[in-house]
């Protein structure tokens, strides 16, 4: 697969070397971190060192970091577990937020994918009691960044609690910008160069919640179950590595901009007028279904996706694009390109040429 061009980093990003090394070291340690003998204490140290690394990325104290089995569990725990009389989210959230509670009020977005702040304000104004508001910092499909500071201010004025799904933000942009604003921030290891199977909730002091997994008293009674020690070690190392890799992240914008400039008017770029993650672009090819595109790209050795990985098996168009007012047919023609720590300009160039080939081929077939 060395020759292949992987442009689906928002689905999962390869393990960073630092994570690999940390995991290899952790694999040498046997023991249950809750056991009081030496093996258990060694394992405890692996976990607590990693907790410090995650805390450093988030600029919080280690006591504020709760490890989970991943982003979906983290989001479910926050949405189901933080007591509030009402829950308010946006229409473009990840399924693990949208489906976690059935009775949430959903605030719409504008054509650029930005949460409508007036509607958010009015929604909170109309509630009798403080709500839990959940918004994603950066969208997984378009990369569009929400005005979290303004959202936080509106939530604060209404005495609500704020959850920020930072799964696509963490490792790319400074996490402290969110942890200073939110009561709970959720992140996932495998989106920032750590392994699958581990995530975290970064919770502010004094925010009570009911855990969804109960049992032994692990994670200060906030998440039961023997800790995924190897995964946690990799997560910690990936956090540290991503923090020192922000320069490379800035270069991803040049790859994205190159693609968008080269494709020009032939392509539709969704959310382009909003502030976006450097690594993500959501591109429509008029008249060509996303399914056709991803198959053609795969044959060319290029991995992209039609929307988020969890829903990419389904044929429905992206709920994110529909929420932005994109019509059904056009939404079904969009693919997501997402770069990561291992990407190079060559990847962008290969994508451009494959895209243009496919475009001219389908145009001539149609003619």
């Amino acid at each position, binding site marked *: 697969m060395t020759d292949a061009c992987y442009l689906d980093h928002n689905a999962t990003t390869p*393990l960073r070397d630092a994570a690999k090394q940390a995991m290899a070291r952790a694999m040498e340690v046997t023991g249950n971190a809750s056991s009081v003998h030496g093996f258990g204490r060694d394992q405890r140290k692996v976990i607590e060192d990693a907790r410090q690394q995650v805390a450093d990325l988030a600029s919080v104290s280690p006591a504020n970091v709760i490890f989970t089995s991943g982003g979906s569990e983290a989001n479910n725990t926050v949405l189901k577990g933080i007591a509030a009389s009402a829950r308010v989210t946006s229409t473009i959230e990840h399924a693990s937020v949208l489906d976690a509670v059935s009775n949430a009020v959903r605030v719409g977005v504008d054509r650029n994918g930005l949460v409508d702040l007036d509607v958010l304000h009015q929604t909170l104004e109309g509630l009798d009691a403080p709500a839990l508001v959940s918004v994603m910092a950066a969208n997984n499909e378009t990369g569009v960044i929400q005005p979290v500071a303004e959202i936080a201010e509106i939530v604060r004025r209404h005495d609500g609690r704020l959850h920020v799904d930072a799964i696509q933000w963490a490792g790319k942009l400074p996490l402290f910008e969110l942890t200073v604003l939110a009561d709970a921030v959720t992140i996932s290891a495998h989106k920032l160069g750590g392994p699958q199977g581990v995530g975290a909730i970064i919770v502010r002091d004094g925010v009570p919640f009911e855990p969804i997994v109960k049992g032994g008293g692990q994670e200060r009674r906030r998440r039961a179950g023997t800790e995924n020690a190897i995964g946690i070690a990799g997560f910690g190392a990936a956090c540290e590595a991503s923090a020192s890799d922000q320069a490379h992240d800035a270069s991803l914008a040049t790859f994205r901009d190159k693609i968008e400039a080269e494709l020009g008017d032939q392509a539709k770029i969704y959310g382009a007028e909003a502030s976006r993650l450097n690594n993500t672009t959501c591109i429509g090819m008029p008249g060509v279904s996303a399914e056709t595109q991803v198959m053609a790209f795969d044959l060319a050795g290029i991995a992209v996706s039609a929307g988020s990985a969890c*829903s990419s098996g389904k044929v429905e168009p992206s709920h994110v694009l529909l929420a932005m007012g994109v019509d059904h047919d056009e939404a079904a023609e969009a693919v997501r390109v997402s770069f990561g720590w291992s990407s190079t300009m060559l990847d962008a160039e290969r994508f451009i040429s494959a895209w243009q080939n496919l475009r001219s081929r389908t145009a001539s077939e149609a003619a």
Partner: protein
Amino acid sequence: MCSARPIYLDYQATTPVDARVMEAMTPLFTEVFGNPHSTSHSYGWAARDAVEAARVQIAEMINADPREIIFTSGATESNNMAIKGVGRFFEGRKGHMIAPVTEHKCVLESLKYIEKLGYEITLLPVGVDGLLDPNAIKDGIRDDTALVSVMHVNNEIGVMQPLAEIGAICRERSVYLHTDAAQAAGKTPIDVRAMNIDLLSLSSHKMYGPMGVGVLYVRRKPRVRLEPLMDGGGQERTLRSGTLPAPLVVGMGKAAEIISNETEADHARIRDLRDRLMKGLEQRVPGTFVNGSLDHRISGNLNIGFEGIDSETLMETVQAQIALSSGSACTSAAVEPSYVLRALGLSDTDAHASVRMCVGRMTTSDEIDTTIAVLSAAIESIRETGETRPRARTA
């Protein structure tokens, strides 16, 4: 295991990852790194194929259909999902669940949650041997009983409950049977069909696989209904959302395959070592007592008490040489005596005088001989000096 390290006899807290498991996992961390739920490219397909192969390996270990295998983050999540999931699904329609008092904490905690939903919970006592009387289940089942949850193998005393008998009773009364089999996999054969099990929890890191992954088996015919614990992308047949950790899943699959291929000789080796440990201690140390049935017990477990000894003091004395525990790892930092041993009728003093040891795949006979020598010397010395330390929280 390196000689500078203590001898590891805490295989019921966690097992080391088998070298063959590590080898199977390695490519998934690097070359085959895709999201197994990505359907649009070969990275995703390769990861998915690896996950599906692991699903088959695990299904074969317990005689299930691969479609009945739901991956989770571990047995704690599986147990939570089974009990809360069934409880929520039948909320308002059923109102009763049954379990023995010796269940793992996460089962008891989940039952407490269900109680808040309005269910009545019957916690059944066990005998002095730690075993549940199947007739107590028969008598306890009501028309509104939704679930019976019985752990296959106890995490502290290693006794095996008469699951097949309990399964037959539950099936006859059309009540779901869930079993926490975290301590059973690889220790005793599991056959979900023959035993009439509807829901079964497994933990990878108790069977020489990695931590952070487990399974909930959910029977398809007759179909078991339950609400998911986690919602989202709809993975695992919508029962468990979240990206599957493909490397860990593959590791657990390999661990299951190794177990399926184990022979009676492998089990006999462990049983011989455990018996050697038990007999050695009984010969060298006066005043020992074994907790729980010896006949209905996994081959590796020894839960043994030494009269007049405080287990905390003993563990501290030998900790440089032997890793053992006074009970379950999750609660081993607690100062309270084991509720499992109390349920067997042990006094606080006798419960505090007991330790759990478990022989495993990597244990050698030299390690057993060293353990006998170290423990008997330590006990003799503690008894001579009459040393009793104040019990204090150690972690």
